[in-house]
């Protein structure tokens, strides 16, 4: 096409020349005149291309080719720009990948849009015992909803099974399991990859079908993808099961952030958890429900219908199974079960990490902005060098739109290269992020990450956006260049006029963004430290905890008390153990209990409605001295109380203050309101313990009563936390504790032995994650600001070499010259830092919930951010300034 156009125009000019020659003009002269008469050939060609409409494609190819050539010609610029952007874009893509996996992506099941969750979708690992509830459901209540609702074509229930002991040829191990109803796979629309999934006929009656479906990951990991696995017998928690199917590779279940190794039918629950049967009890709530809506049913209708069914079930159908207390409680309860869109599945991780992830996302956007400012600065610096080139092109007939397009094409090219590299970084970086967030690293990544159209679209989008952000300003600036002026000027004038104004704005905004990120990071890190070092009220060093499930180990009734006592004796006798005790709820375990009580001599009329409820715990002998909780009044619960199952209680200060104010609570009586055990003698208060943080670092201490473990005051769950105070290094004690428990009875089911410190840290995972990552981003921003500032300063000084040379030649003192060069940077630092501090303080409103023990105006955080940036600015400014000082005046004056 181009060649045709050339030929056509050449023909024209030659034809004109021939005509002229025929009228007597000499040949060479004729050709010259024909050319003059024609005017600008290149401009005409350009207009022809435009007229043909071919410019959009041809031009793009041309622009791209030219852009690539420019990038190849300036490898230094290209490398710095692409790397800078790759870091910025990579961080964004990584955080977005995790956000996508946790918050946005639909479950890999059939038509996820039709799914609806019933209950609190964050309570995926919870068990609740007590008055029937509607954030979690008991099996009988699920049964009622499943059979009586009019809105779901199918309704499944699932529940946490936790770690199960799997025995097969080649030894025993633990695997993660989930209990699901027999319609689980059908409701979700998931077919088995191998064998079959559960059918409605499986597990119709309790204990009827000991069958298992295993996950693809487990099949690959444990059975190397062996197809003959179907029909294989294994023992699960000592009960024989048969593997009937393997789930498809993409299916990880209905819980985002969990990847079970196996699914077992709900009807096998009593066999999998010996000693407990949740299939009959209305008081044991552990199920979350997911329903598939019938066609044309809205979620509103579903909510109304489900709650009507729940109300009917609790008030009428199941009412006879309830205790009188529960019946009363239900009368007063507002029945409004959560019914929410379920396409994205259930998740505790989502609730825990949504806010931190969004905060991190905001931070990486700032990082990207700093990166963009860097590249814009580089482009500006380069623009002086390109002024002549652009001027030549304009003189040759390129229109302003054409020039801007060419420059934008180059920007987009840089951004895309950065984006491609960024995706590679993101892949690695998001995996690191999930590993950091995972409190339980031994079980492998619980989250399925990976690229999908959302991540790719997001990355592509930010690439283009970045290109526009850093590309437009420098590009538009070229348009003000007058060709004649630029051609005459030999690139000497840079650093004057509006262009350096833009440069200064870029630098101050970079500093402002840097302060914003650094100060935020500092606030978060210091909050984390405050949380970690908060005074719990006892010493958490050298304290070890282990949960032993005695009931599940096959013990019943008095045998539970006996083995608890025996275990306590053995643990206390171990060398290296100062003392040992036990309690129902443990510390930072997530287990909590509370009961309704009546305290004698207390006027209830003046109290708020929940005034008769208190948190409680059942504790072993010497609990308070072992944990290190000071007794402020009276005495603690002793070995004697424990052995005689005495009805005595220790209350905490919050309890004493709430019920007694300044009066002495010792000797008063507490009656537990439990209609199942109506004639229990009351508990006499024998001591007051100091308030301690036992389950949450952040929350205020609840009022609490402690009673002897043996007094069977409350519902006995038969699983106790044993607390051991070590004399020396607690880690050294772990293996001997494990051996002691195993020697007691090899069948005892017990969890990991952890230090109190580890347990506390586990509750701070999301806080630790934002603190760690934000400091990483803080360092990244510092690095970017440093590189950007250095490049900009170095260039700025280079353009003033001549001026500096003159000044040096005239005898200007060096100090004054250095000041002259760095003065500007100081002003930008002052402006940027002020802006940054102000914006951090206002932005901190958004993440106030993550701050602890300091305010958003924390002077130390402010100081850290300012000092760090000032240092970086100084380094970036001083080095080029010094280099300029060393310039020989003669060379400087000869410079261009």
């Amino acid at each position, binding site marked *: 096409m181009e060649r*045709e*156009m050339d*030929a*056509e*125009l050449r*023909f*024209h000019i*030659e*034809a*004109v020349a*021939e005509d002229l020659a025929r009228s007597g003009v000499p040949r060479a002269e004729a050709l010259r005149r024909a050319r003059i*008469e*024609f*005017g*600008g*050939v290149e*401009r*005409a060609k350009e*207009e*022809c291309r*435009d*007229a*043909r*409409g071919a410019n959009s494609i041809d031009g793009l190819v041309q622009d791209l080719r030219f852009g690539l050539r420019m990038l190849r010609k300036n490898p230094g610029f290209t490398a710095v720009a692409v790397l800078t952007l790759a870091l910025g874009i990579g961080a964004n893509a990584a955080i977005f990948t995790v956000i996508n996996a946790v918050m946005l992506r639909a479950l890999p099941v059939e038509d996820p849009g039709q799914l609806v969750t019933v209950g609190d979708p964050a309570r995926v690992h919870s068990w609740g015992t007590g008055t029937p509830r509607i954030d979690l459901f008991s099996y009988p209540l699920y049964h009622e909803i499943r059979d009586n609702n009019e809105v779901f074509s199918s309704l499944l229930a699932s529940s946490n099974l936790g770690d199960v002991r799997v025995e097969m040829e080649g030894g025993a191990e633990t695997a993660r399991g989930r209990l699901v109803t027999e319609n689980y796979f059908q409701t979700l629309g998931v077919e088995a990859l191998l064998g079959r999934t559960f059918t409605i006929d499986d597990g119709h009656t309790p204990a009827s079908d000991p069958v298992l479906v295993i996950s693809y990951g487990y099949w690959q990991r444990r059975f190397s993808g062996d197809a003959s696995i179907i029909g294989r017998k294994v023992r699960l928690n000592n009960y024989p099961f048969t593997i009937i199917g393997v789930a498809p590779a993409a299916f990880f279940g209905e819980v985002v952030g969990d990847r079970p190794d196996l699914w077992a039918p709900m009807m096998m629950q009593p066999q999998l958890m010996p000693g407990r049967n949740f299939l009959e009890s209305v008081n044991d709530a552990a199920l979350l429900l997911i329903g598939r809506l019938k066609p044309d049913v809205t979620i509103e209708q579903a909510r109304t219908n489900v709650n009507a069914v729940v109300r009917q079930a609790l008030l009428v159908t199941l009412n006879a199974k309830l205790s009188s207390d529960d019946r009363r409680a239900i009368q007063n309860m507002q029945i409004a079960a959560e019914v929410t869109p379920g396409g994205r599945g259930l998740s505790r991780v989502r609730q825990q990490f949504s806010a931190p992830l969004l905060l991190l996302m905001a931070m990486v956007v700032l990082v990207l902005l700093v990166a963009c400012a860097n590249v814009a600065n580089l482009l500006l610096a380069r623009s002086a060098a390109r002024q002549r080139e652009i001027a030549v092109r304009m003189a040759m007939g390129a229109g302003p739109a054409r020039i801007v397009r060419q420059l934008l094409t180059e920007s987009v090219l840089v951004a895309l290269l950065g984006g491609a590299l960024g995706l590679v970084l993101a892949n690695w970086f998001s995996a690191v992020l999930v590993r950091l967030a995972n409190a339980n690293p031994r079980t492998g990544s619980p989250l399925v990450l990976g690229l999908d159209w959302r991540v790719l679209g997001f990355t592509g989008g930010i690439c283009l956006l970045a290109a526009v952000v850093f590309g437009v300003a420098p590009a538009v600036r070229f348009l003000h260049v007058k060709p004649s002026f630029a051609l005459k000027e030999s690139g000497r004038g840079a650093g004057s006029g509006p262009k350096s104004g833009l440069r200064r704005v870029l630098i101050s905004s970079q500093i402002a963004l840097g302060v914003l990120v650094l100060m935020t990071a500092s606030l978060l890190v210091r909050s984390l430290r405050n949380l970690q070092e908060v005074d719990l009220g006892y010493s958490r060093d050298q304290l070890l905890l282990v949960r032993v499930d005695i009931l599940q180990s096959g013990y019943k009734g008095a045998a539970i008390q006996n083995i608890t006592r025996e275990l306590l004796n053995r643990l206390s006798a171990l060398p290296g153990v100062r003392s040992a005790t036990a309690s129902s709820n443990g510390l930072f375990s997530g287990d909590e209990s509370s009961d309704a009580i009546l305290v004698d001599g207390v006027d209830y009329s003046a109290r708020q409605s929940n005034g008769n409820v208190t948190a409680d715990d059942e504790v072993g002998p010497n609990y308070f001295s072992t944990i290190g909780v000071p007794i402020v009044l009276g005495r603690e619960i002793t070995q004697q109380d424990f052995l005689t199952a005495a009805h005595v209680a220790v209350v905490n200060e919050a309890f004493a203050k709430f019920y007694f104010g300044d009066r002495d609570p010792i000797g008063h009586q507490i009656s537990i309101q439990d209609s199942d055990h109506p004639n229990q003698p009351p508990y006499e208060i024998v001591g007051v313990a100091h308030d301690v943080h036992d389950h949450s670092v952040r929350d205020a201490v609840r009022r609490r009563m402690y009673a002897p473990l043996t007094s069977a005051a409350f519902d006995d769950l038969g699983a106790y936390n044993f607390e051991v105070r070590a004399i020396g290094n607690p880690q050294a004690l772990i293996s001997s504790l494990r051996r002691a428990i195993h020697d007691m009875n090899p069948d005892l089911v017990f969890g990991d032995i952890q230090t109190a410190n580890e347990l506390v840290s586990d509750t701070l995972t999301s806080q630790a994650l934002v603190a760690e990552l934000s400091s990483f981003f803080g360092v990244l921003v510092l690095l970017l600001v440093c590189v950007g500032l250095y490049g900009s300063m170095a260039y700025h000084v280079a353009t003033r070499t001549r001026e500096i040379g003159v000044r040096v030649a005239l005898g200007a003192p060096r100090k004054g010259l250095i000041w002259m060069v760095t003065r500007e940077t100081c002003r930008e630092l002052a402006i940027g830092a002020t802006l940054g501090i102000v914006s951090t303080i206002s932005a901190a409103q958004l993440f106030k919930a993550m701050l602890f023990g300091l305010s958003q105006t924390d002077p130390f955080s402010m100081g850290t951010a300012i000092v760090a940036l000032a240092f970086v600015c100084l380094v970036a400014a001083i080095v080029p300034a010094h280099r300029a000082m060393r310039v020989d005046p003669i060379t400087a004056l000869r410079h261009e």
Partner: protein
Amino acid sequence: MDKQMELLQGTLDMLILKAVSLGPLHGYGVLLRIQQISKDRLEIQQGSLYPALYRLEHQGWITSEWGESENKRKAKYYRLTAAGKRKLQTEAEKWNRMADVIAGILQSTPEEV
């Protein structure tokens, strides 16, 4: 020779269409034809002729093919398409109507207003 007039804005396309309606022409031929018909009274910028040709071709009113010129050289010839013929007709009518109206206005006397 009369003084040359500059072309009125937007009329070049119509003139090109008219020129090639009389028979296929190469670019230079179009130029010569218009100058010849106008008796050299119109001045056409040679540089703007080709963009106009490309534009008309892109719009489908003329087509082009390579042929041999009078002096046995390869040249690109333009001819009117059916759509171009209709376009020329409507453009010419529009032009004539416009010319009448303008002429009427310019000839009006104070009594008529």
